[in-house]
């Protein structure tokens, strides 16, 4: 190409003008080609749709959906107050898509938290001094990473969750966890009706103190805040505790109460958590391996135990290194929720499929779903980048 010599100064001015002009022409040509392609695509699609008697429009979003979803909440207005209510067929198509997005986010956010915790544990397990733990962690990671996620999802659904005992003979573990093939019930927190404002205030103070325990430096201050947290919690309990444990109760027709997870939700959450944990484990292990070995040796020569070294020296540095890789993993994980369609979990992609089958609005729906996933990816990267500059920026100035 021609433009690389444009910087050299001993070319004649006319030649130079020619080179500059040809550079602009090239730019314009590329833009024109892409624009023509895009317009041709749009026109061809419009013509094809017109032949079928369909017009590209987003009007269908506001009409009633007339579909039923097994789960999902939608924002709605109760008078003037915005509320979340369960999706019903009389809601609009747009609300159906929002319900799907709600389900996707529910799985994605839970899986992000769970896979970070389990992945870190397995990653540390891969470097354990115990031969068995080390190799088991390695085997788990390899099994998960070398098989497709889809078979893991259908396996968890058809071979595990649907093989749980039926609802009238549900397993009840540790008094609080009820598992049956019609769903899994976990203990939850419920707001008690008769809580006073004062006890709420005390609970909030307790939460602030608990966070302060984690943030402040120095043993004495930590102890002060810890005492404060315990004291406020005790005072709140004395006034009538505002939160209750809501334990699920097994009945002859299934379970009630607590946090209920549908079988599909249970399966996809388990599959994605286990899958992503393996990837997070590899990220964490790679980061620990990348730290200079001298740090372990220096810590050992100071008399620190292996677990102290890990907790106080290695892991704080690891979390600085792994954030960008974790962000990529979180984005993949969010995209992976779209596989819910294979087991009938009403995630965004599945709901999009149902809605477009009903309305014939495939292309409009694709635009919406694509933009939603793009936005989700951007939000995750922005969050992690902010955290990254927060942590690493502070680390540099210290």
């Amino acid at each position, binding site marked *: *190409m021609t*433009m*690389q010599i444009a910087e050299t100064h001993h070319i004649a001015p006319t030649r130079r003008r020619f080179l500059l002009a040809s*550079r602009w022409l*090239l*730019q314009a040509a*590329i*833009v024109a080609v*892409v624009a023509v392609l895009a317009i041709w*695509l749009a026109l*061809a*699609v419009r013509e*094809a*749709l017109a*032949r079928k008697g369909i017009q590209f429009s987003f009007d269908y979003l506001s009409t009633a959906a007339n579909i039923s979803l097994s789960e999902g909440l939608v924002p709605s207005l109760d008078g003037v107050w915005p509320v979340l209510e369960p999706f019903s067929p009389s809601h609009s198509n747009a609300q159906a898509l929002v319900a799907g997005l709600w389900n996707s986010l529910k799985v994605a956010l839970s899986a992000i938290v769970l896979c970070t915790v389990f992945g870190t544990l397995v990653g540390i397990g891969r470097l*354990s*001094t*115990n*031969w*068995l*733990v080390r190799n*088991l962690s390695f085997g788990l990671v*390899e*099994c998960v*990473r*070398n*098989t*497709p*996620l*889809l*078979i893991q999802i*259908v*396996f968890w659904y*058809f*071979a595990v969750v649907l*093989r749980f005992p039926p609802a009238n003979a549900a397993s009840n573990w540790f008094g609080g966890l009820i598992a049956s093939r019609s769903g899994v019930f976990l203990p939850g927190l419920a707001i008690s009706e008769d809580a006073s404002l004062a006890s709420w205030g005390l609970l909030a103070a307790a939460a602030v103190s608990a966070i302060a325990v984690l943030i402040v430096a120095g043993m004495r201050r930590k102890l002060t805040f810890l005492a404060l947290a315990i004291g406020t919690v005790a005072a709140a309990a004395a006034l009538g505790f505002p939160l209750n444990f809501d334990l699920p109760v097994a009945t002859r027709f299934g379970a009630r109460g607590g946090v209920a997870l549908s079988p599909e939700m249970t399966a996809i959450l388990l599959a994605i958590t286990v899958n992503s944990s393996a990837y997070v484990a590899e990220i964490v292990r790679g980061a620990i391996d990348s730290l200079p070995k001298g740090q372990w040796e220096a810590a050992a020569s100071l008399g620190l135990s*292996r*677990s102290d070294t890990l907790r106080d020296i290695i892991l704080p540095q690891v979390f600085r290194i792994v954030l960008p890789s974790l962000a990529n993993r979180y*984005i993949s994980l969010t*995209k*992976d929720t*779209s*596989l819910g*369609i*294979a087991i009938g979990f009403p995630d965004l*992609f599945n709901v999009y499929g149902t809605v477009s089958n009903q309305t014939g609005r*495939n*292309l409009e729906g*694709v635009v919406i*779903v*694509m933009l939603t*996933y*793009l936005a*989700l*990816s*951007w939000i995750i990267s922005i969050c992690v980048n902010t955290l990254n500059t927060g942590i690493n920026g502070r680390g540099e100035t210290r």
Partner: protein
Amino acid sequence: MSTAALRWARRNLFAKPFDVALSLIVIPVLAWVLYVFAVWVLAEARWEVIGGSLTVLMTGIYPAEQLWRAWVSVAALCAMFGAGLGLSLHPGRTALTVVALAGATVAAAAAAAVGAGAGTLAAGSAALGIAAWVGVHRSARARRLALPGLLVGVAAIFAVLSPPGFELWGGLLLSVVLTITVSILTVPFGILLALGRQSRIASLRVICTAYIETMRSVPLILVVYWIWIIVPLLAPDTSIPSLLRGMAGYALFFAAYVAEYVRSGLQAVPKGQVEAARSLGMSSWTVNVDIVLPQALRVVVPSLVGQILDIFNGATLVFIIGLTDFLRAGQMILADPQNSGRTYEIYVFLFAVYFAIGGAITFASRRLEAHLARGSR
């Protein structure tokens, strides 16, 4: 002997109190799980279901009287894999024994499950693969021909398999052919995207970056489904089979990932080399093709091989466009009421096959990485 074992256990399992506690929890649990699994595999599982449905698992709904076409493609695939091995792995005694044993096991399993004819054909294909491996490794001319041979092989597989119709392709054969085709298609497209992203022409850079970032932010299943529905709208007069539309979707999606790998390879080439080549008066094209790309691609070969695993794992998503891949074929068998109790047998078999293929790809990728790291030292 037993003192050595005791010393090993002491050092590796009971070195510290925490390790002792871990071992005391893990060993009984693991032993119980292994025991239950072994009892199931050896005594309780009814493996006849696999033998009875092996043809469906391997080729889906491909017509029975046309199965010779599938066998020809299996032989071609084995020869291609052998040639690929010949480029990267020395056929030493251990490696040859391992591959020959694997081939013999598969052939014996095919003979036991389907019949002596299938066993002979499988053994023949494996022998062809090993011959290609040794041949390509020995002869420099064969090595030069290996890459064009790969393309010819894929074209031949398409030519042999297509007459009964693309919509009849299925089973593991579909997954493998789709993976190979998409892997080959993504490389040139990915290189062009990566070069475009690094280009000094701003508009090209912006367009390529936008394409790569969009593809990396949306799920594969959405792209495949979207391409599948939009192609008939763009070309209403021709009917392009689902399989080819699906492959286009996969290629468009994974090209963005290849572009990112290639870009990391491009960045690994020292800038001084580009400057030196430019100062010798080379054009941008010559610099890229003769100086930068050969070095950059060398660095990214392990990542590209690893990406083949992603494509193979992603190939399970073809169910969304109505194709019957390996996993879908397994689910089809389970949908038959007389197999309804055989859920675990089918899934364990599917897992084992997926793991064997995935593990082999991962192994190859790691080997290449170690090989290249040694070469560049």
